[in-house]
């Protein structure tokens, strides 16, 4: 009877141990002979365990989409659109004002004739999307304001959209196995990006955050063959349009990119290269949302002589074709992110493609083409946190961590063997099994092992040692009290188990809470600790006891025990 229970226990332990060994050291394919060699085992181990960025090297970025800016732009655009729509329909709208601060977003459209209010509302409804806004009217004013709920929803949508765009940008960039997800509270607008193996994230950062506000617009200038009208200073340019920018005339710097920036670093300082200004007519002919394709191309193949060719979607091509047909010999500007990248006259009618000239380096041309293709971010993003660990530093920390852990383990093993002698072997088996199974559990739940995770692992091992100490000390007490060996072992385990379960449950509760409410590094700690403790209930109590049961089974009349 008791014998049968013992066999079942042994079978369970062996099955779990073998499963653990396979999970940690075994390959995820049909094993071959080399998997049993030392180097094969090491390779499998490295493959199975998912190391965090702090251990294997990589870049961890937390960015925030400036959702407030997004709503502000939206409000501004809607205001502008409402006014233009009303005026185009010859309705008496005179001006609009917007409020966009402290979570209040509203557009106020002023009419000169209140009796036309309904007509304005009907017209605006057709052209401008105010569906999520609350509309109030009073006399000459129509006010649309954005309720909080709609604000939250739009912010979330902006973040979702940014997430998609960033994803397409990093995918195109070729980052291997990136992690990209929302981060922090639902309304924080934060996005987390982890890129294993990337030790210089500058280029990726630039690429992700890059604006791609492209527009093609007419330059205010006498037509070809006169050269394009430029101004040496911003002031002079403003002078020509009456001192200030208007809704139809804007001044942009015109950068001559004669000297390309160094490859890879893409650290251009735009302010330094600007030497001219041009006046550009608005609204623009087409903008970036009409783009279908954008590519970096080189005319000569030499580094530093790259251009970006692009083509339009059908609707954009139609618009562009009509406009170029009417504007032969006029100058057109390619305005990118508030800067005129190239200015050229229209030689003939062009429909669906164009080119941004200006001597780009290969890298900057490729990055630019990529951002243009992926579309414009809904709002600017700002970086809030960057942690980059070079692969060598990561390897150093893992080496230090593993060495410290192994050193500590060796010391504990020696101590347990000296202090508890024969029974110390139980403790050592329990400890090793605990570490093996914790690793296996980490692999099963696909969790990553980080530096704080190693701290959790060490605390788990510490509590595993404590469990053994509690049990052995209790057995010793029972022996001192004159009980038989079998009774002492049984009582020692039973009584210590109550203590162990209380200490473990307490720590599991607090770790679970840490996991639920904590952030990245805290979570890593909590996960390994909880796993270690759950496994400890098996390894320190169940396994260790089974070993004692075997000893008693083989020698029921045992009179001395090595403890």
């Amino acid at each position: 009877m008791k014998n049968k229970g013992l066999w079942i226990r042994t079978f369970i332990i062996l099955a779990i141990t073998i499963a653990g060994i396979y999970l940690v050291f075994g390959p995820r394919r049909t094993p071959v002979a080399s998997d049993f060699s030392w180097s094969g085992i090491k390779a499998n181990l490295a493959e199975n365990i998912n190391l965090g960025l702090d251990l294997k090297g990589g870049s961890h970025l937390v960015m925030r989409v400036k959702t407030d800016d997004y709503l502000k732009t939206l409000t501004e655009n809607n205001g502008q659109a409402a006014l233009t729509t009303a005026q185009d329909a010859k309705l008496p709208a005179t001006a609009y004002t917007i409020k966009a601060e402290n979570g209040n977003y509203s557009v106020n459209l002023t009419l000169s004739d209140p009796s036309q209010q309904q007509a304005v509302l009907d017209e605006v409804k057709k052209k401008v999307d105010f569906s999520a806004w609350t509309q109030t009217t009073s006399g000459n004013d129509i006010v649309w304001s954005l309720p909080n709920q709609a604000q939250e929803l739009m912010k979330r949508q902006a973040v979702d959209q940014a997430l998609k765009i960033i994803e397409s940008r990093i995918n195109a960039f070729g980052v291997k196995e990136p992690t990209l997800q929302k981060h922090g509270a639902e309304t924080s607008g934060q996005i987390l990006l982890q890129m294993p193996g990337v030790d210089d994230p500058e280029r990726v950062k630039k690429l992700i955050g890059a604006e791609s506000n492209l527009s093609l617009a007419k330059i205010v200038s006498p037509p070809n063959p006169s050269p394009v009208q430029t101004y040496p200073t911003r002031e002079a340019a403003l002078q020509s349009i009456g001192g200030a920018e208007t809704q139809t005339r804007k001044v942009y710097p015109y950068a001559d990119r004669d000297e390309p920036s160094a490859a890879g670093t893409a650290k251009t300082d735009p302010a330094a290269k600007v030497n001219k200004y041009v006046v550009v007519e608005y609204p623009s002919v087409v903008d970036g949302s009409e783009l279908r394709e954008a590519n970096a191309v080189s005319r000569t193949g030499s580094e530093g002589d790259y251009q970006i060719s692009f083509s339009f979607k059908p609707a954009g091509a139609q618009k562009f074709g009509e406009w170029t047909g009417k504007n032969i010999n006029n100058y057109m500007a390619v305005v990118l992110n508030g800067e005129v990248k190239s200015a050229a006259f229209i030689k003939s009618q062009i429909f669906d493609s164009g080119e941004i000239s200006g001597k780009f380096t290969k890298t900057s041309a490729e990055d630019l083409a990529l951002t243009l293709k992926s579309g414009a971010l809904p709002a600017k993003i700002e970086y809030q946190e960057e942690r980059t660990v070079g692969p060598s530093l990561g390897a150093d920390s893992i080496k230090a961590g593993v060495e410290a852990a192994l050193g500590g383990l060796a010391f504990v093993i020696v101590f347990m063997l000296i202090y508890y002698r024969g029974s110390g072997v139980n403790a050592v088996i329990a400890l090793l099994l605990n570490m093996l199974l914790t690793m296996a559990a980490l692999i099963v739940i696909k969790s990553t092992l980080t530096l704080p995770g190693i701290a959790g692992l060490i605390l788990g091992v510490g509590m595993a040692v404590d469990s053994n100490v509690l049990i052995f000390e209790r057995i010793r007490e029972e022996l001192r009290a004159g009980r038989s060996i079998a009774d002492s072992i049984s009582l020692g385990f039973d009584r210590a188990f109550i203590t162990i379960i209380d200490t473990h449950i307490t720590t599991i509760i607090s770790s679970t809470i840490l996991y639920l409410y904590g952030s990245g590094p805290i979570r890593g700690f909590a996960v390994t600790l909880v796993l270690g403790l759950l496994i400890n209930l098996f390894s320190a109590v169940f396994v260790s006891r089974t070993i004692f049961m075997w000893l008693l089974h083989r020698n029921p009349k045992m009179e001395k025990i090595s403890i």
Partner: protein
Amino acid sequence: MLEIFKNISVDWMGLRKPLIFLSIAILMAGLLSAIGRQVTPGGTDAFNLGVDFQGGTVITAKFRNKPAEDEIRSALQAQGISDAVIQASLDKQDEVLIKVPLFEGKGDTAPAEAPQAGGEDATQVNLGRATVKKALDTFGKEAEAGKRLADDESAIYQIVGTDSVGPVAGAQLRNQAVIATLLGLLGILLFIAFRYDWTYAAGAVIAVFHDVLITLAFFSVFQWEVSLTVLAALLTLVGFSVNDSIVIFDRIRENITLHRGKSIYSLTNDSINQTMSRTIVTNGLVFLAVLALVLFGGEVLRGFSLALFVGSITGTYSTIAIASPIAIWWQGKIGNAKVKEVALPQSGTEKMASASRRSVTRRPVTR
């Protein structure tokens, strides 16, 4: 049997007044240090917060031939960073840690650099690394991305690690850590109250607070840097301290059911004495392991090791000096705790008596 203690009978609870006095003295020292530093104009802050919690940038740079600290400092100054902390790595001779405080909110210390025309703002996270790189570039070229310093002949240095945290993220990490820890403690409080008694729950949680505060007191007095790894260490010591308290409470609970009529005061002493050899073995092992970490753990883990070092001592100490006296004192006010009898899974109470019967025959503990 190799044993450290066979029979000890120390009147621990009689020592509670000097022990609590010691705790209060250390806490006061920490408080004075924190307040003193905070109010001294131009002085250091209460805590030497790492970039994780207050924002800033830490760059780990590896050099082929490490320049003198003053050279690095003046190179940084040329870029407008006047209050950088430059720290040579103790364990790696060719590496140096450069800590740059927040730019934002300190207008005049911000490097004079035009904001980027790109879509991102020139925030701390972007400027920190770029500015340090600019300063280091005066020594020579950085190794190319993807190459190790040793493999890139023309390079003179390489940035091997960056930790850059904006002020918002810093505050967020700090608040989140504090909230998570407090909620974790609440969970512990409820569980111990459920399994034992409110008086014990309060004792254990106050002891945990005591341990964390004592550790923080050391961090303030000695101005050790508080980083995220220190937070991990504080979490570890919370677990450690509660574990230690529960082991003793469990023994007290057992002894209460065995020796009805005996005062809680002497039961507590008995329990501490009976578990002393476990306390010494476990905590001794932890202490030695942590000591090794302090001595050999390296620069990155320094804060972590120091916090655990202090914590491994106070965690053990607070169970005896704080948690148990509070439980006793409170029970003296509201009457003894009615702890639940914990039945053993397999054996009856008659068998269970064996372990502690001896303590009755020992010299009874008197006040």
